[in-house]
């Protein structure tokens, strides 16, 4: 590698700044424009400050214990686990887009797959980080692997999550290797090339793993036969929520990818992905959502009329006598967060209208997040013994900060990746350099 001479040339404090700038521009992909380094660093610092706040809260949780949170014995699972489930559902765009691209061979999607992978990588690394904070004994976290109980849905989640994170890393690596400077190293150049050519195998493994861990996350709640609000009958060892979660992650994940793409476009002020790509993914997502929401409605009906009454509950018991969980939440989840975006995205007109399309993405993201919220927090809140009361909880700042931490980390990773890696293959074409 060729750094020695230059390092000498640019040594000296007065030259340091210039050197940094040169280094920065050398890393930026060819043929694209990026904002000034100063602007970039300021933005990075702002997000970094938020990240540090989150890190501080995280350290508090690790060193002082989970008393730093507002979780309690009724709310053993709270904000974090919701964030975990939501982030994994939203990161589902990666596996599903990969599945479509590599297995179903929807080739247009190559123009968005990089970003889908990056978002997935962020989501899954965040999920693992949150889990590491959430457990009471982080230094014993590896017991879940070593002393695994294969009957536990959480074991399945942990295994598949970790494996799938490996897949995402494998998918993300070639992207890093495509950096202008790294690519100059022959080994890395070839590695990138070879990994691309075997990607279908990795993507298939990823899809397989995702199917199971998304499902097991649904199973986490569905198998709780002591919690009639969550409990579902199912197929063999899998409760219906297992399939619903997989299906919804596949359906809603791409919406999140598309939403983040749109936000990136808005911030960078550039069109990054062509409309036909967006519309294709939106269409597939829309149909997935449609089928999912039908299944979800059937599930809700069956649960409300058969499962819950067999345990002595009426549907309304789960949505009354408390200050938060009203029937509105069911409407928000199914109608606003399900039927409406699905309806927009399966119609040509809806897909073609940027406003309608973007609204659908946002609604979809809300819809799936509400679903995950309900399946985690409402499960904990509903009283089961007749002499129990509703438990409501409000997160502590430490919980909020540690939940924002991955968001800040994600933004930083996107900023850096976008600046230095050729994430959007169509960018140069759509934004020709003058």
């Amino acid at each position, binding site marked *: 590698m060729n750094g020695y001479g230059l390092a000498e040339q640019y040594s000296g404090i007065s030259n340091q700044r210039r050197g940094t700038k040169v280094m920065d521009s050398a890393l930026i992909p060819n043929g694209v424009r990026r904002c000034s380094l100063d602007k970039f660093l300021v933005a990075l610092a702002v997000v970094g400050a938020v990240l540090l706040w989150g890190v501080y809260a995280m350290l508090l949780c690790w060193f002082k214990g989970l008393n730093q949170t507002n979780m309690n014995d009724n709310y053993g699972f709270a904000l974090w686990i919701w964030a975990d489930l939501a982030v994994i559902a939203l990161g589902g765009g990666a596996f599903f887009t990969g599945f479509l691209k590599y297995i179903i061979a929807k080739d247009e999607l190559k123009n968005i797959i990089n970003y889908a992978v990056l978002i997935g990588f962020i989501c899954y690394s965040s999920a693992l980080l949150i889990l590491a904070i959430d457990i009471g004994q982080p230094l014993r976290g590896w017991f879940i*692997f*070593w*002393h*695994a*109980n*294969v*009957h536990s849905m959480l*074991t*399945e989640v942990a*295994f598949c999550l970790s*494996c799938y994170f*490996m*897949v995402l890393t*494998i998918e993300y690596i070639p992207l890093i290797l495509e950096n202008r400077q790294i690519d100059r190293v*022959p*080994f*890395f*150049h*070839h*590695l990138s*090339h*070879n*990994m691309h050519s*075997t990607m279908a*195998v*990795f993507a298939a*493994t990823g899809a*397989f*793993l995702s199917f*199971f861990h998304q499902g097991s996350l649904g199973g986490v709640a569905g198998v709780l036969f002591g919690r009639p609000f969550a409990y579902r009958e199912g197929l063999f060892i899998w409760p219906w929520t297992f399939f619903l979660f997989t299906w919804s992650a596949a359906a809603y994940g791409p919406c999140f990818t598309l939403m983040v793409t749109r936000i990136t476009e808005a911030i960078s002020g550039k069109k990054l992905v062509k409309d036909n790509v967006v519309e294709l993914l939106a269409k597939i997502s829309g149909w997935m959502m449609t089928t999912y929401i039908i299944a979800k409605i059937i599930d809700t009906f069956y649960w409300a009329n058969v499962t819950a009454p067999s345990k002595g509950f009426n549907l309304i018991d789960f949505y009354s006598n408390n200050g938060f969980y009203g029937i509105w939440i069911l409407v928000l989840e199914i109608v606003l967060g399900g039927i409406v975006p699905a309806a927009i995205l399966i119609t040509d007109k809806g897909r073609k209208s940027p406003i309608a399309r973007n609204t659908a993405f946002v609604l979809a993201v809300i819809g799936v997040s509400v679903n995950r919220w309900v399946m985690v927090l409402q499960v904990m809140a509903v009283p089961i013994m007749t002499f129990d009361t509703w438990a409501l909880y409000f997160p502590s700042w430490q919980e909020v900060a540690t939940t924002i931490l991955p968001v800040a980390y994600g933004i930083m990773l996107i900023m850096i990746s976008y600046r230095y890696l050729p994430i959007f293959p169509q960018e140069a074409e759509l934004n020709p350099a003058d």
Partner: protein
Amino acid sequence: MFPFNFEWIWDMSHVVFMGGLWYALTILGIGMTYCVVKSTIDAAKDDGGHH
């Protein structure tokens, strides 16, 4: 996790579950090894070709 772990039993659950796990890990392992080895060879080839 491994058959020598205290919790391990040779039953359906373990074989299916852990089987799936090791299957996935094996694919990832072989895939990555293949990529690394092939890239090393490719890089060496480039090198040789140039001299």
